[in-house]
């Protein structure tokens, strides 16, 4: 079992005009994420009870009207933010895939969380994405594009940091044949990685706030 994440890098407040943004990479997979809100909402999209979420993942080529990643990102963020706090407003989270070298879904979710953290708006808990693939009955975490292409099954976990400090699954997206034991094994492999990503969030935010020490 390969249980290591690739090297993570992040630059916050990367895009000038967005309220919160990040350039995030894991290995050679890189995304730009931006988050603007709570902002003014068009009357046709306005919801009197809750905030309107506008999530889009855009790859660097091809038709980007809809991406399969939108669903899992949307459901994760709608669980992460207490939408009822800001009725009649909107938040736009846009993730641009810059370079795809595997596990783009996980990287997109992590980037979205970084953009939310950089924005500084209230939300319930930090979240991250971890992709696990199965190549010849071996589980690989955070695979490269090559490993992903040769895989017989993959599962993307969207993970919350629970209040007791243990990672909890929020949503997952599995492709291929998985039996229960394999899923269990994949999840136990993903847990330390999720914890590592949460630690990385903390160290990046620490760096951002270091200006206050003076």
């Amino acid at each position, binding site marked *: 079992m390969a*249980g*290591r994440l690739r*090297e*993570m*890098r*992040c*630059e*916050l407040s990367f895009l000038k005009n967005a*309220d*919160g943004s990040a350039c995030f990479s894991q290995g050679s997979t890189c995304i730009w994420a931006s988050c*603007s*809100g*709570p*902002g*003014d*909402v068009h009357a046709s999209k306005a919801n009197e009870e809750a905030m309107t979420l506008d999530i889009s993942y855009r790859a660097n080529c091809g038709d980007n009207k809809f991406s399969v990643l939108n669903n899992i990102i949307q459901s994760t963020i709608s669980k*992460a933010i207490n939408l009822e*706090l*800001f*009725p*009649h*407003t*909107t938040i736009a989270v846009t993730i641009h895939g810059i370079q795809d070298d595997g596990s783009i879904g996980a990287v997109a979710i992590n980037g979205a969380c970084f953009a939310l*953290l*950089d*924005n*500084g*708006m*209230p*939300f*319930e*808990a*930090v979240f991250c994405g971890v992709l696990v693939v199965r190549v010849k009955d071996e589980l690989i975490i955070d695979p490269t594009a090559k490993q992903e292409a040769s895989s017989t099954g993959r599962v993307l976990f969207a993970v*919350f*940091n*629970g*209040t*007791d*400090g243990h990672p909890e699954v929020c949503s997952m997206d599995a492709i291929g044949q998985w039996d229960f034991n394999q899923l269990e094994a994949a999840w136990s492999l993903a847990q*330390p*990685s999720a*914890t*590592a990503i*949460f*630690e*990385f*969030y*903390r*160290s*990046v*935010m*620490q*760096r*951002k*706030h*270091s*200006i*206050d*020490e*003076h």
Partner: protein
Amino acid sequence: MFLKCITHLYLNQLILHYLLFHGNNHVNVSDMSIYLPGDVINEPSSSDSSIIGYGINLRGDKRLVTQPGALRSEEGKVWLSVHSKRYIPQEGDRVIGIVTSKTGDFFRLDIGTAEYAMINFTNFEGATKRNRPNLKTGDIIYATVFDSTPRTEAELTCVDDEKRARGMGQLNGGYMFKVSILKLDMDCYLYFVQVSLNHCRRLISPSCKILLTLGNFFKFEITVGMNGRIWINASTTDDIIKIHDILVKSELVTDEDELIAMVQNNYTRSV
């Protein structure tokens, strides 16, 4: 000289054993403690801090963090200092707004939030039913937020409980624009810039040397709104440009000598 704040961090080959020991919600307390949404605050113990401030929510008897920030505590109060560019109205904040329209008894103000804020014309010092404040679209107001219930517009006031303005009210002058517009009129003595909310809080904190240093070189007026807007006024346009440049650039300057050098450089340069 002013390097862009780069939060490039390299986490080389994460060794899982290390993280299993140091992981979870444990916060590495080096100089300050950073909390992320979902964390529970345990320090200082709940008995000696009864007032819960910005970025923290009470769930049962647990203090749950809702915004990412550094923990601050003083005299039985705890709050988080959050870095943000987007302003969310909070009761008691002093903000700078722009009059956008007038409807009946209310003025509509743009304070940088999703919806416009409202201010009743009686909430100005000396205003009565007969003597209404003479405000036009585009005027700048310094006011306090006193109602920020969701689902309704934020409501502002320019007087305190004793019906005194105490510095609030219209910021007088003829001209105003934002930093992104580079056109400068020669008659313009007023300047209006938009920076991050944290920089505004830092500017008006008593320990911050930026305004003190500026005051040694320039004669100027400044009003800092908690919604990230700064209004400055000086006797000449050149001074306004220099002060504006210093305020914007000083966001990432922490070293005092560097700050003084920067103010000096800007003071002596010709615009």
